[in-house]
């Protein structure tokens, strides 16, 4: 294994082309993350067409640069202007902006930057350690288990994307349906082509993704006439000198907060569809609850910057763990990376790390290296950021729309793909207007074919549909799916109500049941602990209710 890691290290660090591409990618990511209205996902999607001509590792390394850079770019705009560049830096604004206003902009930027760096490093170590283990676990999965895992990935995306759960489910189903158009992979039969030859190939995944996400976002950005014509930021901030040493010393003193926030980030990243936008707020909330200086939060508290920044960069590592180990994208960015791998005829799954060790470990190394670039480029990107913010949105949107068309054409050299992008762009725009979340639809498009393939394999092996409920892993994921569908109702339920009291222990108990049937002592012990925990929760709420009645 060591020799594979060394080879992967050499393929990244000693290849000037790959390093150069990563450098450009990180810079582009920092800028994409810093500009409000642009997201990291959009930055990665727009990078994709450039990667067609690259090798798989070069393409992935470039996208990882954008991914990692994007998280730190968000902190630049939120600290200097008070406007979060990306949803994943919202919580950083709470204490970052007040610290800047109190006359310490260099320290605020330093804290954000180095917290991102350390958070990313911790998640990179966990990524290297956990992904191969999780992939090993994935080898136990049969088609039943895989199908149920995909169902779980879709339902959790629906429940975490916010808003109306029915609209989320409709969006997810629309995505699954879009993936059925064209010749099916099992029988080679044409479906929903309506006599058009172009439809036989189906909708390529990337034009759909660029249309749904980038195209529709650009249309939303230019919607307001006044906003579209004014510069991206009215207040674009000023150049500051980052206080590196002081920031590192402060962060290392707060190592418990750093590790706790990083683990929150990693865990959130592992959950499909739960990205940096959730982890940064969760970590901030936990840091506030654990702090002795709670009253200082919101006034420039150092812990309030360390927590969200460490968490959002750690989320990237978590999302990569799922993609590398099981081939299930953790968020939109990893869904794009999955698409990029497919362009190179590489299908990630449990055997990916074994089959493509150089590429897999190359991704791990690139994730490490990108964090060093992120720190190194911060001062330079700050200058470019101040220039870019003077451009009006309508100029940027017009140019990027044309670029989307060129990029999508480059995929298969067919104009039909541009029409597909346009069609899904229009759908995405109106879905957003009507309050439908786009993330479930995107995941539906990505996972649709995989879901059908596994369902066909499962029913091909046995007609017995009960196997979906009798196989432990399949049952485990189906229970997770049910729990995730009910989760929004739990969030809305009143604290102390019967439903909110029973939801957590019932979920833990239900998840323990399939673990009991897995042939492993460790899992049996985990299941018994989970059952114990669920009974403890029930007992606790019983005591609480009794005290209230008395």
């Amino acid at each position, binding site marked *: 294994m060591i020799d594979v890691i060394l080879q992967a290290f050499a393929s990244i660090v000693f290849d000037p082309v790959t390093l150069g591409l990563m450098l450009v990618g990180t810079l582009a990511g920092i800028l994409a993350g810093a500009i409000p209205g642009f997201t990291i996902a959009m930055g990665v999607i727009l990078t994709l067409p450039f990667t067609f001509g690259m090798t798989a590792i070069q393409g992935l390394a470039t996208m990882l640069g954008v991914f990692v850079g994007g998280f730190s770019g968000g902190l630049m705009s939120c600290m200097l202007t008070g406007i979060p560049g990306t949803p994943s830096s919202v919580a950083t604004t709470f204490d970052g902006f007040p610290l800047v206003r109190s006359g310490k902009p260099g320290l605020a930027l330093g804290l954000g930057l180095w917290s991102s760096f350390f958070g990313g490093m911790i998640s990179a170590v966990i990524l290297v350690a956990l992904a191969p283990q999780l992939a090993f676990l994935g080898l136990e999965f049969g088609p039943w288990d895989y199908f149920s895992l995909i169902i779980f990935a879709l339902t959790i995306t629906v429940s975490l994307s916010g808003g109306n759960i029915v609209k989320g489910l409709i969006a997810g189903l629309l995505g699954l349906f879009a993936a059925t158009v064209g010749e099916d992979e099992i029988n080679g039969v044409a479906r929903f082509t309506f006599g058009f030859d172009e439809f036989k190939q189906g909708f390529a995944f990337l034009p759909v993704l660029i249309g749904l996400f980038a195209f529709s976002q650009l249309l939303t950005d230019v919607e307001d006439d006044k906003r579209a014509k004014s510069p991206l930021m009215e207040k674009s901030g000023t150049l500051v000198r980052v206080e590196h040493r002081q920031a590192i010393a402060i962060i290392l003193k707060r190592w418990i907060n750093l590790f706790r926030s990083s683990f929150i980030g990693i865990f959130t990243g592992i959950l499909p569809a739960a990205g940096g936008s959730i982890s940064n707020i969760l970590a901030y909330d936990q840091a506030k609850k654990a702090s002795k200086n709670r009253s200082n939060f919101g006034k420039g508290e150092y812990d309030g910057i360390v927590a969200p920044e460490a968490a959002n960069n750690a989320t990237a590592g978590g999302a990569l763990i799922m993609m590398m180990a099981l081939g299930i994208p953790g968020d939109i960015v990893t869904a794009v990376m999955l698409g990029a791998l497919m362009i190179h005829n590489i299908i990630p799954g449990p055997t990916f790390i074994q089959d493509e060790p150089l590429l897999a470990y190359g991704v791990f190394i690139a994730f490490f290296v990108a964090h060093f670039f992120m720190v190194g480029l911060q001062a330079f990107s700050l200058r470019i950021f101040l220039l870019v913010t003077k451009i009006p949105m309508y100029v940027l949107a017009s140019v990027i729309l044309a670029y989307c068309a060129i990029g999508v054409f480059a995929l298969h050299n067919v104009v039909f793909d541009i029409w597909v992008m346009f069609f899904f762009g*229009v759908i995405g725009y109106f879905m957003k207007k009507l309050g439908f979340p786009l993330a479930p639809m995107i995941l539906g498009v990505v996972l649709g074919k995989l879901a059908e393939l596994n369902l066909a394999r499962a*029913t091909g092996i046995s007609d017995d549909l009960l196997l979906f409920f009798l196989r432990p892993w399949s049952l485990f994921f189906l229970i997770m799916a049910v729990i995730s569908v009910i989760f929004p109702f739990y969030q809305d339920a009143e604290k102390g109500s019967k439903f909110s009291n029973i939801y957590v222990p019932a979920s833990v108990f239900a998840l323990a049941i399939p673990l009991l049937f897995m042939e492993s002592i460790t899992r049996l012990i985990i299941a018994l602990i989970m059952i114990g925990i669920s009974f403890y929760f029930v007992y606790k709420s019983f005591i609480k209710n009794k005290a209230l009645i008395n």
Partner: protein
Amino acid sequence: MINSSYYIEDPGYQGMKASYWPRIILWLLSIMSLVMLVKSFANIVDSINAVSFSQINYMQFKNALICFGMFIIFLTFLEYLGMLLGGILFVFGLLTFLGGFSIKKSTNHLIISVVTIGVMWSIFTFGLKVILPEGELIRIW
């Protein structure tokens, strides 16, 4: 679509038929849509506050509709104008419609469209070796 799913060919192979999976999705989609419809009726408590079609501010979609229109024109004429010329005209047109018209603005818009599309076209054509649509007009020329 559900109706169309019943016309999907069955080659007679063993295993899951090609029509099963899309049919499952379409039925679930129909059920969800019905749930949404019922919910939307249940939510209309005060019909006075309900917004009718005539009250919707269609001007909010003006810029999006301009983008749609320009993009359709761009794609329709792509075969004749090619990616370079078509792209420049698309960006220039869109900048003019969204940003407004004056001699100074139009000059800036023209420079932006020529430079940005020129750079992108060069990167894809010479750097990434992608053969972008040349356009009949340039071919004849």
